[in-house]
């Protein structure tokens, strides 16, 4: 299994600040905006962005939730793997809110399709945007595109993009891993 580095810790840091600024540009004080990290791995990115917004740009009390999409996926019983759930933590209604979905990698778009269905359980949002650290171009199965993207990547199907976070994996880095 060979891997090459796509983004280093320094690059990730710069991109996170840019993404935070782009969010700020569109949502200003975040009074009617909620960030929703997609479980399992979008939650780290969401947490980081909230941290930057609060520490660097003094936007306090940004509402944030984590959404698990397991029970909304379209591949139940279709793959080899058993789908394992994570917890959903959304303690507010999204009714009439500007929702920003946050995930680490956008690949086929199916997770986001599931998230669009799942979030309806919490109300009817005013609008939904998508923020993703890595956008894998040319691999979409559905007409879904990000509003904010960290880096666009061309990867072929037998390659996997692996995003590592310091708090979970010991380092901030993005790797392109070749599957054997």
């Amino acid at each position, binding site marked *: 299994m060979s891997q090459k580095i796509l983004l280093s810790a320094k690059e990730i840091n710069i991109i996170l600040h840019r993404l935070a600024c782009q969010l700020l540009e569109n949502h200003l004080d975040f009074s009617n905006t909620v960030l929703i990290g997609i479980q399992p791995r979008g939650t780290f990115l969401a947490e980081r962005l909230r941290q930057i917004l609060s520490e660097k740009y003094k936007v306090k009390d940004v509402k944030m939730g984590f959404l*698990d999409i*397991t*029970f*909304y*996926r379209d591949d*139940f*019983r279709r793959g080899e*793997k*058993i*789908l*394992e*759930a*994570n*917890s*959903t933590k959304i303690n507010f*209604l999204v009714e009439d809110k500007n929702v920003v979905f946050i995930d680490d990698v956008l690949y086929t778009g199916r997770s986001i399709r599931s998230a669009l*269905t*799942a979030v*309806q*359980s*919490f*109300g009817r949002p005013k609008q939904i945007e998508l923020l993703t650290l890595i956008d894998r171009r040319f691999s979409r199965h559905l007409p879904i595109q990000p509003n904010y993207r960290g880096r666009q990547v061309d990867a072929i199907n037998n390659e996997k993009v692996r995003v590592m976070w310091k708090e979970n994996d010991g380092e901030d880095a993005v790797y392109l891993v070749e599957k054997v």
Partner: protein
Amino acid sequence: MSELSVNHLLGIKYLKKKDIDLIFETADHFKEVINRSIKKVPTLRDITIANIFFENSTRTKLSFELAEKRLSADVINFSASQSSVKKGETLIDTVNNILSMKVDMVVMRHPNPGAGIFLSKNVKAAIVNAGDGAHEHPTQALLDSYSIRERLGDVGGKKVVIVGDILHSRVALSNIFALQLQGAEVKVCGPKTLIPKYIESLGVTVETNLEKALQWCDVANMLRIQNERLDISYFPSTREYTQQFGLNKAMLKRLDKEIVVMHPGPINRGVEITSDVADSGQSIILDQVENGVAVRMAVIYLLASKIK
């Protein structure tokens, strides 16, 4: 990735500790789902489930049906009282007829012990035992343990006394298996006539004095006196049973600790438990009912994911 070690839920006897852990973790997620404003998820939209009840049931049937619908499964209901079973059809024929309508899972209650096991060997569908005679009632035991875990943090190391008619109770047997598997200590308490002769071989202790049993335990699970199953007189009168084995407020007050009170329902108020106990803060009877839906959703979800 973790999955259940079994393809059917026939009894707690066939489960491992890690199966119970997985069911509880999954049930935690479903408990969050059923407390949302929209309580439904689309996971099982291509699964059809038949609820086949050869014996009366209100809450178990409702709970299963609700769990199935919350998961978006298609549900058909069948009660033996209004069916061809009365015309002499065999169990396998009845079920195979239902399965030929492309049903993936069968939830069955049957008066004969072992009916679920028999069915699982003879038909092609995932079977969930919703009570087979005086044998097992696995989902009830799972929701009981889940409720204890929710209230006390853990089941392991806890002392649980099961009070009442142990002889005719599938709830008692499944609970004994489930509690022991999770490392709890189990005692049974009731009139000697209603305690099976060799119950101690299961590793439980027997106590015929309710006060002593309560003094010992962290949790008391009060079973219903099942008048419909008592074919002969096992105790002189209901009044005498209540005096010896009925739980009342004064008794709880005499204890030097606060125990948790459970009841699988339906309650005979004033017989095995008084109203002031059943409705008190120590009772988790209604939590058991709520958790029943989440636990059954977890069981159905995990079994459905193994259907090929």
